[in-house]
């Protein structure tokens, strides 16, 4: 057994945060081993001693003492290392030469449960997920108190271990879907999962889909709603959100929290989001189509007003549009990159450029600024940031097609997007499914 200690010393001893500590617990002399960065050693030792003080043995021998400390276990080197990495304490009894695996006080490496940072909640529960996977699952269990909610945990990766948990409600979820997901995760358990692209690959989904395969949410309320609708939820350790699988088109427009409003208001709010998405897609394309290709569709008065506002603009509508759209995208990107304290500078500078200067300099028309504003505002009505990214990308397809074919191009672009969306499916469930109740996974 000394050779085992030596092996551990060889493989982990060069870590300065790894400790070997001689200790006397009761009458036994032991060696404590673990990572000081993962274990709160002082409290752990206190607990060990307190445990021994209160210990009233039936039989006074070493083996019953070991059982009181933790789990007596034969283990090999790699297993021991996994346990160390997981924040466990290993106690080595010197005289008996036996290893005991003990639970240790973890050092606090998580933030407290806070309100969400990427999603706003009006009139709803505002606690959001944190990085710790067990806390997240606990929050879901608190949110939906049901014996049908099942949790399956997996360890993925061969070099780097990552904990994954699958949560589903067995009374609502399609058992075939659950089985498929579990099988897929198990079959790719040797793949590293460090980000969502890795996860998409590990689940055997296409990495080239512009529409995200998961609906990410920070809110336990949304996860609970999704569970009841028969979806499955994936949690990954160190990711402060739940991944709702599969992602469906209606998630773009609906929040579980909407149901806290009266029904008519909920319908109106959701319709508003639909209008938002359509405006984002259509408005820039329509401007390009009407100005550059089909001005005759407009009322003559309106056509003249537009022509007047474009007077002096030296390039075609498509260049004007793409130019301003890209500047706008840059502003959005810049304001997410910058620290919060300098962020407002960008907003201000962007506001000046877009608001007045660019029009006064006759680089773009007045109307274009209005279209841009409408597009940007309506783009933000979509639920979930990942969905708004996809819509932002799609609008360029329509702008380019409109520049080529006018209003026909606009509609052709919409057809193309519709066709693309209807070709998407996750685990055999089409992206266009509206409801996902049991047995309806074939619906589209």
């Amino acid at each position: 057994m000394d050779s085992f200690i030596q092996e551990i010393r060889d493989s982990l001893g060069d870590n300065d945060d790894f400790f070997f500590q001689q200790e006397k617990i009761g009458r036994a002399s032991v060696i404590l081993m673990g990572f000081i960065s993962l274990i709160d050693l002082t409290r752990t030792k206190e607990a060990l001693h307190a445990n021994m003080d209160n210990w009233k043995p039936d039989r006074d021998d070493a083996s019953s003492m070991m059982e009181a400390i933790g789990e007596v276990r034969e283990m090999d080197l790699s297993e021991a290392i996994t346990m160390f990495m997981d924040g466990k304490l290993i106690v080595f009894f010197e005289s008996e030469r036996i290893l005991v695996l003990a639970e240790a006080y973890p050092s606090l490496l998580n933030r407290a449960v806070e309100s969400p940072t990427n999603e706003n909640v009006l009139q709803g529960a505002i606690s959001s997920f944190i990085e710790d996977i067990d806390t997240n699952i606990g929050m879901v269990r608190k949110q939906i108190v049901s014996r049908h909610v099942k949790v399956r945990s997996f360890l993925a990766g061969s070099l780097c271990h990552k904990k994954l948990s699958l949560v589903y409600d067995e009374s609502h979820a399609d058992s075939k879907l659950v089985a498929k997901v579990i099988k897929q995760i198990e079959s790719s358990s040797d793949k590293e999962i460090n980000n969502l692209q890795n996860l998409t690959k590990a689940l055997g989904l296409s990495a080239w889909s512009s529409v995200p395969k998961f609906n990410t949410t920070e809110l336990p309320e949304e996860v609970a709603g999704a569970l009841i609708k028969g979806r499955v939820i994936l949690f990954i350790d160190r990711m402060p959100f739940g991944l709702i699988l599969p992602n469906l088109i209606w998630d773009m427009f609906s929040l579980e929290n909407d149901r806290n409003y009266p029904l008519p208001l909920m319908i109106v709010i959701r319709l508003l989001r639909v209008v938002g998405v359509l405006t984002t897609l259509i408005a820039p394309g329509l401007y390009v189509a009407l100005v550059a290709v089909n001005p005759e569709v407009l009322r003559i008065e309106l056509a003249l007003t537009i022509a007047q506002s474009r007077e002096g603009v030296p390039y075609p509508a498509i260049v004007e549009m793409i130019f301003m759209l890209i500047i706008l995208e840059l502003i959005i990107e810049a304001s997410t990159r910058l620290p919060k304290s300098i962020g407002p500078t960008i907003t201000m500078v962007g506001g000046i450029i877009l608001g007045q200067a660019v029009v006064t300099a006759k680089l773009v028309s007045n109307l274009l600024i209005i279209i841009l504003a409408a597009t940007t505002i309506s783009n933000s009505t979509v639920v979930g940031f990942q969905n708004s990214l996809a819509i932002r990308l799609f609008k360029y397809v329509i702008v380019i097609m409109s520049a080529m074919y006018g209003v026909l191009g606009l509609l052709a672009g919409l057809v193309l997007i519709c066709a693309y969306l209807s070709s998407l499916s996750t685990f055999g469930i089409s992206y266009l499914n509206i409801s996902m109740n049991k047995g309806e996974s074939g619906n589209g």
Partner: protein
Amino acid sequence: MDKSLHVVLMYGLTQLGFIFFFYSGDIISSTTEGHWLAIVIGLVLNLVMVWLYMKGLGYFPKQDIISIYSAVGKWAAVLFLLPLVFFLFITNIITIRAFSEVITLVFLANTPLWAIMALIITLSGYIALNGVESIFRTGVLLAILFLPVILFTICISFQNVDFRYFFPVMDEKFSFLARPPYWHSFAAFAGSFLFLGFIQPYVAYRPKYVLMTVAALVPFYFIAVYVPLFTFGQATASTFKFPFIVLMSTIHINWLMFDRITMFLLLCLVTFTMLFISMVLWKLSQVLHRCLPKVKPSYFVIAIAAANFIGCLFITNWDEIQSLVMWNTMLRFFVMVGIPCSIWLLGIRAKRMIKDEGA
């Protein structure tokens, strides 16, 4: 899983494009009086054929017409499927070419014809490549987006009607039966319902709903013919190639920012027609895939789309389209009447054989 809604929408959408484009013009130029008689005869024939077709298909659950004919024998497959392939191929060429022509006429005067045809074919090909279920889902999305626009334009098309043009009521000689434009009007029916026989292995639907859709579409046939008649009168309306499109150009609404409502009707119909073309591409690829099982169906879609495009390029003017439509007439009637009847008869035969075996 019942997907009647998808099937029904697909059927309705593909019909609408033909009704408002070609049907109204064909009927108006085929007779000078009693148009309703011409419409009713066509509709009754259509209804009977759809009913027979579905009745026949009902005897072969989960089979498409390719396997039904192949089961009977090679001769049956060649006899019925070969004309079908030709019919579908020519229909595709005519549809693409004619719609591109209308688009250039109405609002893309400076865009070359080949560019528009390429756009239509590429998009339809893309939809067809995604498979039949995806075609149906696209249909549902398009219906949600564009059907309200179509219904709106149809509602406002009544702006200038004068109901006295309904007279004279009767054409006692049935002279329209002998006129080529009347035969062409059947193009509105022929291509649309055939897909019901191809989708059985993939999508389940209830025949009842399809028949209800056929009934629900009846008003549209009358609107497409009678609203231009009521607005312009027979003498004027018969001079237009596309009476309904011209009609929409005459509508004026004060509160709308757009001057030409035609555009919206036309474009929405074009999107539905893209759906029709993609369906035809898919049907063709299925038939050819059965003949050469080694080649993937998606390669056939690409090859047929390319062949269609080349075919369209060879047509230089409207008269050539008309003569192609004329050649297609024989095939059209064969497909429209022959396939439903034969499927029905085969169905009865199959049922009897099962009964005999049972006894």
